């Protein structure tokens, strides 16, 4: 009996191996890119490789950072809504609300929505000075602000659909966590009023760094009394950190 002609299995394995490596790259690079991001931007090496796998990982929803409760567990962000009827009756709602959203998974989805509004929040702007200094950053600011306003309006429209013929306004609220030392000294309820803070939607105040010097430094005495010119470069420091000739 002759063996049926089949493609070489090792070739199939090689192909599958390449696909597996590609998939592994697609799941490793997105969280790596999150960790390698800094004020300077994304690490050039990571961003170069990521560009190849980003479409795949984004479509499969494997482009996550997995930063659960990281870098530090922080306060919760809620949404407070004021629903005012045409006759002036006003109802205040807080989202999420365990009494209203049940089961817990439904409550948690509402909680994630209120956290999302905080995540994408960008103050009104950009400041005119930023537009002059860095137009690209200013455009990013502007786009981010539009995104926030669009999502916020969508939340308002949803509440209007739930409460037709009512005026709806929403605001963000931060629910802070008592510090451990504060709690040990003075235990309070976790839903104590003092722990809630309204997040105001105010533009960022731009401070011109050239307007006031950070520190007033007296001009150095460049010309010593004996008339010799100062050295262009300071002499090297000694092992104890002082420079030869410097005053203690």
């Amino acid at each position: 009996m002759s063996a049926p002609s089949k493609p070489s299995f090792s070739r199939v394995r090689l192909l599958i191996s390449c696909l597996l490596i590609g998939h592994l790259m697609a799941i490793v690079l997105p969280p790596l890119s999150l960790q390698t991001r800094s004020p300077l931007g994304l690490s050039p090496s990571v961003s170069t490789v990521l560009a190849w796998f980003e479409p795949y990982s984004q479509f499969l929803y494997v482009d996550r950072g997995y930063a659960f409760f990281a870098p530090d567990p922080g306060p919760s962000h809620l949404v407070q809504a004021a629903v005012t009827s045409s006759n002036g009756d006003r109802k205040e709602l807080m989202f999420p609300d365990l009494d209203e959203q049940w089961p817990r998974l439904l409550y948690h989805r509402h909680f994630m929505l209120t956290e999302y509004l905080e995540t994408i929040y960008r103050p009104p702007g950009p400041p005119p000075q930023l537009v002059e200094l860095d137009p690209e950053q200013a455009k990013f600011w502007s786009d981010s602000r539009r995104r926030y306003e669009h999502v916020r309006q969508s939340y308002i429209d949803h509440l209007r659909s739930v409460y037709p013929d009512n005026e709806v306004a929403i605001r963000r609220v931060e629910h802070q966590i008592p510090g451990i030392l504060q709690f040990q000294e003075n235990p309070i309820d976790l839903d104590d009023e003092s722990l809630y803070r309204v997040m105001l939607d105010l533009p960022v105040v731009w401070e011109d760094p050239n307007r006031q010097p950070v520190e007033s430094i007296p001009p150095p005495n460049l010309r010593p009394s004996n008339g010799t010119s100062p050295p262009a470069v300071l002499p090297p420091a000694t092992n104890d950190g002082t420079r030869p000739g410097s005053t203690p």
Partner: protein
Amino acid sequence: MSGNAKIKNWVTGNVEAWDRFWFRPRLPYTVGALRVVAGVMLLYSHLVLATDLQSFLGETAWINNDAAQQLHDGSFGVSDWGWSYLWLIDSPLLLKIHHGIAIVVTACFAVGFLTRITGPVAWFMQLMYLHRLTGALFGFDQIVTYTVMYLMLSPCGSCFSVDARLRKRFGQRLNTSKWLGWLFPTTRPSVAANVATRLLQLHLCVIYLFGGLAKARGETWWDGTAMWLSVANYEYQSIDMTWIANYPRFFTAMTHVTLFWEVFYCALIWPRRTRPLMLFGAVVLHGGIALFLGMITFGSMMIAANVIFVSPETIERWTRRWRPTLESEDLEETGENAEEWDSLSPSGSTLPTDEQWSELKRREERVRAASKRLKAKSARLKGREAKYKERVEKLREREGKIKRLVQRRRDAKQKRKADDEERKLPPR
């Protein structure tokens, strides 16, 4: 051994290890058990969404269709490749029908009915929900989607399933068609089950590694107060755990253990010695999240996902008593079981099919490779044995020499002593 030979051996060894890691057939009991849990969790997620569908999908949702689409299509400067046909569905009736289909398909996947089809469909529909529900998602959605994604690659419907029952009932008829054979897979080891298992295992490692590294960038995971900040978060809290404020040694220790457990999970989950410890840590950590931080779905699903590191043989042993009439009889009928997994003629036919022929060839290759490895090992052992014998021989020679030397010295000493005594004797 020359340098080239060493490199060649190193490369060959790594290729063989890669081959063993990915392509060694694996029994489907673990993926089958995980299918049940992941399917039920996904079904629960859909059912909960159904209770408030219009708040999350459609034109009047918290994030309406336009906003959901614009969050992905670059309208706000940043675009991505996420896409969902749900952006286009405004009609509440259509959304309800769609959601009903999603529930039915997911229920079928959970019970293991037509799993080869319902698995991919359930995953794809879930993916569409994920790209639509931007802003309302959290870790639970990630892990349940990834689990279903990998399970659909495997014959996870071959056990603990309606498919297994159907196969038992219509076994002979199913074996006549390759298509039906694929649709209702037997409970036998397969490369697909192994690939799915490995992918989920590695994905878990990535999740924990980067979860740990992200925590390591914070301060509170190092000063130990992160645990306090988590349990004192009122919105997460499901059971009041603020009493731990009185036990700073306890909660700071738990914080540090969590950080190190997450960072080192990717290394310590693989050795058999440390695996039980890491799995115990997963149960404690995620059990705590489920019970105390209000995320029972997320915590339970993470514990379930960790089961992927439990061997299928163990799952088979654990579940044997609950499935006396299902797969065990199916296995008897097909002549397959955990130990005798490689029977190739389940239909009882004498001539092997193409698939069986290639399986035979693969087995032959595996047996030959194993034989070759054994021979090489035997040769190495023989070489070492010869060396040991040679060393023992040399040692014996040295021992003999030393004994002879000692004997000569003793003789000389005795002779000297005898001479001295003879000299001391008084003259007659």
